[in-house]
């Protein structure tokens, strides 16, 4: 089988200084800017009034009693469980006592919920705006050049993605244009940001999108009926089978001494 000679394309070495270098620098600087913009725009947690705080904390109290029941002795666990369950079931901790059993208010009308959504919107915007701007910038100034060759072969399907704006039919898909260098930068700059900004940075949109999934601790989202949460927590407390870490500690101590 005849060996197909490798394609070589003479390119101006200045391409590196005027395309590759600016794109890389801009990508790194945008990441840093995004990190600091996120830090600055992070809204400080809103002050809650007394009733709301009590409602949230008392539910959290129930959860932590349930999670750490093993460090309590049986009698103190039972006392706590009984007190909490009575209060949950009678609705003593509720913010508005009269609102029990009524359907939760529409989250769109609740100003506190809107605040939270605005925060998420701001974060989304901090992702989308720079990306759109840079894509437009690269398309406007740098489209139509081939700047580099990938070190590994690709199938023909990648041609339209990698060589956007270069309509040459027989060119090897390994040659890539500036827009594909941009995509490589999006995916591959995370180590650089880790190095520059510390590892919990907000510079990379890929990492940020993975965190978009709501955190597990979101107990008081909009449209959740607190009364139902209290009842569910009371049920959770009721079914706990209590045991203590001090159960059989004498035996363990003796075994430890013997060995």
């Amino acid at each position: 089988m005849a060996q197909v000679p490798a394609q070589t394309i003479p390119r101006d070495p200045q391409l590196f200084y005027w395309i590759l270098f600016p794109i890389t620098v801009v990508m790194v600087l945008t990441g840093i800017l995004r990190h600091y913009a996120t830090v600055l725009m992070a809204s400080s947690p809103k002050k809650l009034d007394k009733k709301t705080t009590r409602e949230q904390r008392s539910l959290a109290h129930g959860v932590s009693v349930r999670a750490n029941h093993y460090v309590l002795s049986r009698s103190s666990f039972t006392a706590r469980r009984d007190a909490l369950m009575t209060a949950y079931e009678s609705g003593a901790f509720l913010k508005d006592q009269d609102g029990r059993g009524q359907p939760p208010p529409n989250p769109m009308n609740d100003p506190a919920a809107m605040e939270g959504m605005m925060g998420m919107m701001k974060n989304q915007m901090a992702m989308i705006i720079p990306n759109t701007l840079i894509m437009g910038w690269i398309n406007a100034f740098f489209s139509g050049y081939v700047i580099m060759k990938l070190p590994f072969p690709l199938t023909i399907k990648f041609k339209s993605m990698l060589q956007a704006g270069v309509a040459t039919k027989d060119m090897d898909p390994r040659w890539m244009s500036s827009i594909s260098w941009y995509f490589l930068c999006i995916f591959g700059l995370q180590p650089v940001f880790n190095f520059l900004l510390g590892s919990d940075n907000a510079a990379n949109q890929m990492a940020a999108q993975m965190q978009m999934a709501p955190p597990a601790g979101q107990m008081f989202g909009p449209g959740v009926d607190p009364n139902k949460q209290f009842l569910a927590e009371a049920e959770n407390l009721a079914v706990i089978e209590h045991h203590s870490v001090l159960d059989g500690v004498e035996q363990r101590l003796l075994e430890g001494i013997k060995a």
Partner: protein
Amino acid sequence: MAAERELQIAPLVQESLVHNTRTLNNLHSLTASLLGVAAGILGLESLAGFAFYISFSLLAAVLFYVLRVAPSSLPAGKSLGDTSRYFRRGGGFEFWTGGLMGGLAGFVLTWTLFYGLVRA
């Protein structure tokens, strides 16, 4: 149930686990980028480059084990190759191969860059 009780008697500190994992991740991503630089300068292409990446990141994991993990985990009674003294998640598999996927993007980026600068 027995394992759960054991964990409650001797609890793990979550912060330390997170710190260990983060240190390992930083090491992996930095190693991947530097391996990309090396592969690009050597002018490796296609499969040779990926084989280079896989073998040297595994080597980095082995070195990390030998230099950092083994000196204190072997005297603590762990068997050879057991990383559970410092890394609990994923049962060792993550320690040895976790960096491969995470660092791949960084590797490809620097590999392409230096291959382009040196060869193409």
